[in-house]
């Protein structure tokens, strides 16, 4: 598979870019932030997303979607990264859609997937409990009770948790924290008794929630996949999410870099354009090279997810780690090269810095993935 986009994929990119840059430039996020908008994204825009087929990208055709792959999801994420558009795309169209279509039974699929595709159902994946991403450390307890389970515990950062109509909750039905066996995923109604959802206002003005579960009752038919066997499913879905977030970081890095290069060509000091200073030129060139390399690594990971899913872990870890490091550098250089302007809220550049920090943490930062890769390579 050549590491370039096909013609159809380029067309998808163009249409996503058209819609997003038109309807959701950075000012869109800014105004949601400034008005302390309760939803945190535009439902109207999400409808437009659904009409364009984006919300159903990963939903199989027989459930109303377009049955495309991770490369396509990555293309949309990259465009989202360019303008930082807040939307349930990652939580619903990527994570929930792939969890359901990969492991749902027929009833679960027909109940939820068509509604994800038509934009009427929002979903969120609840995994992390501590400060750092450690999927095997899941400790939220699901204890058998009657015909089902009782959930007790808390989740720390649930992307789009406060607007979700459906939660996919990772819980421990067996084993101990740190073990892969004994994890189970549940489909949970966020309005169920015993659930407390607190929207957390995050640094990047995107949506996330803390969720507490006390004696939440779930039925056996709310189990996604097999009891105790959720580890592999979770890892697979997380890998798709990691590829998607890596794509968002490519878009974000490229946008912030583009704005920075433009500034280097406009801003004058000492009677020269600052872009004439070699110290800045070389740093800009290094960043350009890092971004190109990151783009290739991310595309490689997405193609591997679509082609050889079971063995995509290493490529995904490479992509997420590299994208995190590059995005961090891109936003830091972006602010630095904009000088004092870069520090003002009035200027957009800080929004990218904040979002990059969140994307780093999501589903494992660069250190986490470096460690994963080392383990896979046996050292």
């Amino acid at each position, binding site marked *: 598979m*050549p*590491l*370039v986009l096909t013609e159809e994929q380029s067309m998808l990119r163009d249409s996503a870019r058209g819609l997003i840059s038109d309807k959701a430039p950075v000012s869109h996020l800014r105004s949601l932030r400034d008005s302390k908008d309760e939803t945190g994204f535009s439902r109207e825009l999400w409808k437009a997303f659904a009409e364009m087929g984006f919300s159903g990208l990963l939903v199989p055709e027989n459930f109303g979607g377009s049955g495309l792959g991770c490369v396509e999801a990555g293309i949309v994420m990259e465009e989202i990264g360019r303008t930082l558009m807040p939307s349930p795309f990652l939580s619903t169209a990527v994570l929930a859609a792939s969890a359901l279509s990969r492991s749902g039974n027929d009833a679960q699929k027909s109940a939820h997937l068509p509604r994800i595709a038509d934009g009427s159902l929002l979903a969120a994946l609840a995994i992390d409990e501590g400060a750092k991403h450690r999927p095997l450390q899941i400790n939220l307890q699901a204890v058998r009770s009657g015909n089902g389970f009782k959930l007790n515990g808390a989740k720390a950062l649930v992307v789009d948790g406060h607007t979700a109509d459906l939660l996919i909750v990772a819980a421990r039905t067996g084993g101990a924290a740190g073990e892969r066996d004994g994890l189970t995923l549940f489909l949970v109604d966020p309005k169920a008794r015993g659930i407390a959802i607190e929207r957390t206002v995050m640094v990047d003005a995107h949506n996330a929630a803390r969720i507490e579960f006390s004696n939440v009752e779930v039925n056996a038919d709310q189990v996604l996949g097999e009891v105790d066997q959720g580890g592999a499913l979770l890892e697979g879905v997380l890998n798709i999410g990691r590829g998607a977030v890596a794509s968002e970081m490519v878009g974000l890095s490229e946008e912030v870099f583009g704005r920075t*290069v433009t500034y*280097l*060509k406009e801003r004058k000091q000492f009677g*020269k*354009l600052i*872009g*004439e*200073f*070699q110290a800045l*030129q*070389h740093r*800009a*060139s*290094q960043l*350009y*090279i890092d971004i*190109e*390399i*990151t*783009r*290739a*690594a991310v*595309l*490689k990971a997405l193609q591997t997810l679509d082609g050889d899913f079971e063995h995509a872990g*290493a*490529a995904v*870890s*490479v*992509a997420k*780690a*590299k994208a995190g490091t590059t995005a961090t550098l891109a936003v830091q250089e972006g602010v630095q090269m904009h000088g004092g302007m870069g520090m003002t809220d009035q200027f957009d550049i800080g929004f990218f810095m904040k979002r990059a920090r969140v994307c780093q943490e999501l589903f494992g930062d*660069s*250190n986490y*993935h*470096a*460690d994963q*890769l*080392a*383990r896979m*390579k*046996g*050292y």
Partner: protein
Amino acid sequence: MSDLETFRRETRAWLEANCPPEMRRPMTSESDTYWGGRNAKFSSEPQRVWFERMRDKGWTVPDWPKEYGGGGLEPAEHKVLREEMAAMGVRSPLSSFGIWMLGPALLKYGTEAQKKEHLPDIAAGLIRWCQGYSEPNAGSDLASLQTRADSDGDDYIINGQKIWTSYANYADWIFCLVRTDPAAKKHDGISFILFDMASKGVSTKPILLISGYSPFCETFFDNVRVPKSHVVGQVNRGWDVAKYLLQHERAMISGTGERGIGRPLGQVAADSVGSDDSGRLDDAVLRGQIAAFDIDEAAFAAVAERAVDLAKAGQSHPAFSSAMKYYGTELNKRRHEILMSAGGIDALEWESERSRGGARPRAWLRTKANSIEGGTSEVMLGIVAKRILDLPGA
């Protein structure tokens, strides 16, 4: 697609059948490679066998046209061959500036007579070439070169000095940049010319390097007479040829496709450092450095693959080879720093059987040249800034 799969299967089978086991290990030093030329010697029988079989198949230069001694492979087939060779850890049969640098330039700029004269000899490893670009006062600022070629009837008379000429003392012929119009602006009076190192008036003097080897020379030209027909491309337009050749040189030095062969760094490190109870390298910081390196290397492999695919799709930027050169060489230097650090005291040995003649520290020192030769890292970043990012200034 299935044609390509057939080709892959046949290629694998041919390599299995024809590549001697001794040639399926990664090279450990430069002397492991065969450079060809009039005075060439094979360092071992398997090296000879392997070279001759590949030459007979045209696979010393798999992508050159058959009429010039190449294998006539399509780009996609060439990629398959490289992948299969890498998968098997197979060595390339012939190292050659003729293959990496001069050949591509001749294919693009040479006359038919020049191609016929030189390309088959390069493919067959009969003539070894060296590169006469740098001069004492023209390194990064290559276009300042002063070696002159004065017209004398059908010939030029060449006078001047080159420096850093790799293997000039072993080379049969040189591809050389000379000034044919001293009055013109500096880029406009340069020509690209070929001549025999055995010509009267050519002399060389080796320079000893920090690695203990002396792979390059000072090269002197004292009234060397060269026919005008040996100019490649137009007279005074040699800069175009020189730059085109540099793209290939940079791609070669960036080491795309050459790395990742051999044992993973983390395991090499574990041999000397040891592992803890959970199987992790017993030096957390080194482990982190290696993992970070592995990520960058895997990402670089992806961009190298993508560069080929972009070129095929007609979407590549001509200056991108400078980006690759920069990253690939800095990465290679990092790799060897890690190897030294992982080897600890053992990696310090300079002369002994056990250390294969100090192979590791010598290789480490050699890599320091990667970000200098073929244009320095700073020059590469300058090219990216100007040609790709379009930043202002001289």
